[in-house]
C-alpha cells in the first residue's frame, strides 16, 4: 500500500497495464514526452518507449478513429482526451463507430478502446475546461461509462476498463486529482494522503464495472451520486446530521440498479446529485429508474441536485457548482413530511 493521489493511481494503473499486456498502448495530446498536462502519464514513455506511449496530433477525432483501427488490429489503446470539453470532435467516431463495431459485425470484430478524459469544474477553467458530458455518453448504446471518485477506485476501475473487451469512456473528475473536495472552495485543500481511499495497492487489482460503492450506509435518505459530488453530498448530509446512505455509482453504464433500489426501498427517500447540467442529464435517468422501480416505497419526490442549465461560467464558478447549499436544500425538501 502507498499514498497516491488520483493522478498517481491512474499512472500506476497504466504502468501495470503496459507491463502486463504488450498490446496496451497509451496515446494522446502531450501525453508522451511531457507526461500529460495533468501528468497522468508521467514517466511512462521513458519506461515503455515511444511506440507504446504515443504523442498524437491535436485531433480528437483522429485519435479515436486511429485507436479504433489499432484495437481492431489487436492492440488495446488507452486514449487521453485532454479535457472532456474537447471530446466532441471525436463524438462521431465514438457514437457511430466505437459503440457499434461489435454489434454491426455480430461480434466478429470488436474495439476494446479506453478513452480517459478529465471532466468537471472547480478549477476556474471556465466554460471550456469544466464540462461534465457523461450523460450524453450514457445514451449511446454500446459504450461503458465510468467515473471514479478516489484514487483507489480510479486505479482499479481503469485496470478493469483497459482489460474490458468493450469500449469504455473513463471520466476523471479533475477537481479530485489532488484531494477530496467537499464543495467549499474557501477551506484549505485536503490532500489524498489524509483519506483512506488515498491508500492504494501498488500492484495489480481491479474494481468491477457495474458495482456501486455504498460510501456510507444510512437509513433516512439515499443519495445517489458519483465523482466530485460524492464528497459534497456527504459533507452536506453530515452538516445536517442526516443518516444518509450515500451511493457512489463508479460506473454509470453498466449501472448497479440493484444497489440503488435496495437502498431507496430501505430509506424511502432519494436525492440524485451530479455536477452536469440538469436538463436531460444523467440524473434524469437515475431519477426515472428509482421512480419506476421504487415508486411505492417513496415517501417524497426524488430531488435532483445538479449544475444549472447554462454553460459553466468563469466568474461564477461557485454559484454554478452544486455545492453543499444546493445539496442541503434538496435534502431538506426530500425530508419534509408528506
Amino acid at each position, binding site marked *: 500500500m502507498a499514498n497516491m493521489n488520483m493522478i498517481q493511481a491512474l499512472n500506476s494503473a497504466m504502468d501495470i497495464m503496459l507491463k502486463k499486456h504488450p498490446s496496451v498502448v497509451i496515446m494522446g495530446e502531450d501525453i508522451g514526452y511531457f507526461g500529460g498536462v495533468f501528468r497522468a502519464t508521467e514517466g511512462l514513455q521513458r519506461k515503455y518507449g515511444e511506440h507504446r506511449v504515443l504523442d498524437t*496530433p491535436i485531433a480528437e477525432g483522429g485519435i479515436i478513429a486511429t485507436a*479504433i483501427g*489499432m484495437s481492431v488490429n*489487436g492492440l488495446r489503446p488507452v486514449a487521453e482526451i485532454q479535457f472532456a470539453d474537447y471530446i466532441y470532435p471525436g463524438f462521431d467516431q465514438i457514437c*457511430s463507430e466505437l459503440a457499434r463495431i461489435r454489434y*454491426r459485425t455480430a461480434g*466478429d470484430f470488436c474495439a476494446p478502446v479506453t478513452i480517459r478524459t478529465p471532466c468537471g469544474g472547480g478549477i476556474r477553467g471556465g466554460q471550456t475546461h469544466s464540462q461534465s458530458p457523461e450523460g450524453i455518453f450514457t445514451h449511446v448504446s454500446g459504450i461503458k461509462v465510468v467515473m471514479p471518485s478516489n484514487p483507489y477506485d480510479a486505479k482499479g476501475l481503469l485496470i478493469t476498463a483497459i482489460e474490458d473487451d468493450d469500449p469504455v469512456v473513463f471520466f476523471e473528475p479533475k477537481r479530485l486529482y489532488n484531494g477530496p473536495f467537499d464543495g467549499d472552495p474557501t477551506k484549505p485543500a485536503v490532500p489524498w494522503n489524509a483519506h483512506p481511499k488515498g491508500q492504494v495497492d501498488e500492484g495489480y487489482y481491479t474494481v468491477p464495472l457495474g458495482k456501486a460503492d455504498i460510501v456510507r450506509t444510512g437509513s433516512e435518505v439515499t443519495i445517489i451520486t458519483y465523482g466530485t459530488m460524492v464528497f459534497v453530498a456527504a459533507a452536506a448530509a453530515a452538516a445536517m446530521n442526516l443518516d444518509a446512505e450515500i451511493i457512489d455509482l463508479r460506473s454509470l453504464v*453498466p449501472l448497479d440498479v440493484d444497489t440503488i433500489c435496495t437502498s431507496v426501498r430501505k430509506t424511502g427517500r432519494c436525492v440524485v446529485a451530479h455536477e452536469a447540467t440538469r436538463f436531460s442529464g444523467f440524473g434524469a435517468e437515475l431519477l426515472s429508474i428509482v421512480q419506476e422501480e421504487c415508486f411505492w416505497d417513496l415517501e417524497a419526490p426524488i430531488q435532483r441536485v445538479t449544475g444549472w442549465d447554462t454553460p459553466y461560467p468563469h466568474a461564477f464558478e461557485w454559484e454554478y457548482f452544486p455545492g453543499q447549499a444546493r445539496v442541503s436544500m434538496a435534502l431538506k425538501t426530500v425530508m419534509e413530511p408528506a
Partner: protein
Amino acid sequence: MRMKKHSHLHLPSAPARPGEAPDFSYVALSPAGAVARPDINARARDIGSLSVELVRVLDDAGEAVGPWHPHLDPAELQIGLRHMLLTRLYDERMQRNQRAGKISFYIRSLGEEAVSVAQCMALRPGDMLFPSYRNQGLHIARGIPLLDLMCQLLSNTRDMCKGRQLPVMYHSKAGNIFSISGNLATQFPQAVGWAMAAAIKGEDHLAASWIGEGSSAEADFHHALLFASVYQAPVILNVVNNQWAISTFQGYAGGEQRSFAARGPGYGIAGIRVDGNDFLAVYAVTQWAAERARTAAGPTLIELVTYRGAAHSTSDDPARYRAKDDHEHWPLGDPIQRLKQHLIKLGEWSEARHQALTTELEALVISSWKEASTFGTMTEGPKLNADLMFEDVFKEMPKNLRKQRELMRAETSRPGAPRAGGK
C-alpha cells in the same frame, strides 16, 4: 439587409444536367504509357506530378504500354476479368431482386469493377481492407462466397451481421475485410490506425481503405491523411473519384480546383492519379503503393478516376440530376470491355470464352441466390430470432438488456403483433 445585385460566390457546375450533352473535357488525361514510374523510395515531395497526371497502361487499341505495365501472367488477367464480370453480374441480379421486393436496398458498382478487383489482387491476403459500400469487388476478389454476401442482403438466418445491418454492409473476419459503416468516411482513419498497429507490432501487413470522392470532404479524410503522414503508416488510401456523390458533382468535393490525389503531397504523402477503368494501371499503381508501405517508404493516396455508371443506389433516380447517356460518353471506357479487349489482343481470350464465362457466372449467381434463399427471405423461410437484437451490444448482455429482451418477447408473442415484412 441590403444585397448587391450580384453575388461573387463561386459555385462548381456539373458537366451535364438532364437534357444537356455530356461534356467530359474537364477530365485531365495523360496518354497511355506517358507517366514515369518513380522508384518506390521516392520522397512524396519529389513526385508531386504523379498527383496531377493520369497513370494509364492500356491504350485505346488494348495494348499495354509504358513503365507502369505490370506484366501480369495472362492467367492472372483472366482471373481479374472473371472477378470483374462476376461482380457485375452479381450487381445486376441483386438490383433486379431489389426491384422485385426481395431485398430492401442495393448499391451497384457498375463501371468501377476494376478498382476493387485489381487493387485487391495487388495486395496480400494478410492486408486488411477497409472498404466503402461500393467495393463488393473486394469481397469477390478475396473469394468470399456469393452465398455469404447474399445472406447478408437478405438479413436471413445465415447473415454474418445477424440482421443488424442494411444490405451491402458486409464484412469478413476471415477475409480480412472490415465492416462497412453507413456513416461515410469513418473507415479511412481507422485503416490508418490499423496500419499504425501493424507498424508498432513490426508486422509487414498493410491496410488499405476506400472512400468516394464525395466522402473525402468529411473530416475523417483529413485525419487519415494527417495521421498517415505523421507516423508514416503502412497504409494505402484510395479515393474513388466516380465523379458523383448522389446528385452532387465532384466539384463540390473540391475536385474542380485540383485533383484529389493532389491532397496527398499537401500532407507530405505520395499522391497518384490513375485511370480507374484500366485494370493494369490500377494493379500497377497499387502494387507500387503496397511496396512503399511494406518497405516503410510511406503511405500513398491513390485517386482512381472512374465513373459511376448506375444510380447511386436503389433509392436513387439519376435521371433527375444528370444526362441520361452520360456513362456512354465517359472517356475512359468500361473496365471489363478494356481488359477483355486486351486479353483478346494477347490471344488469351475470345468472344466465345467470354460468353461461356458469362453463362457460367450467371448460373453461379442464380444458384447461390437459390441457396441463400433457403436460409430465409424477407417474406419466407426461417427467420432470424429477434432475441439477437439484444446480443453484441456488449460482450456480455447487461441486466437492462436482458429485461428488455423479456419485454420484447412478451410483446411479439401476442396474437396480431406486427412482424417484419411490413413496409
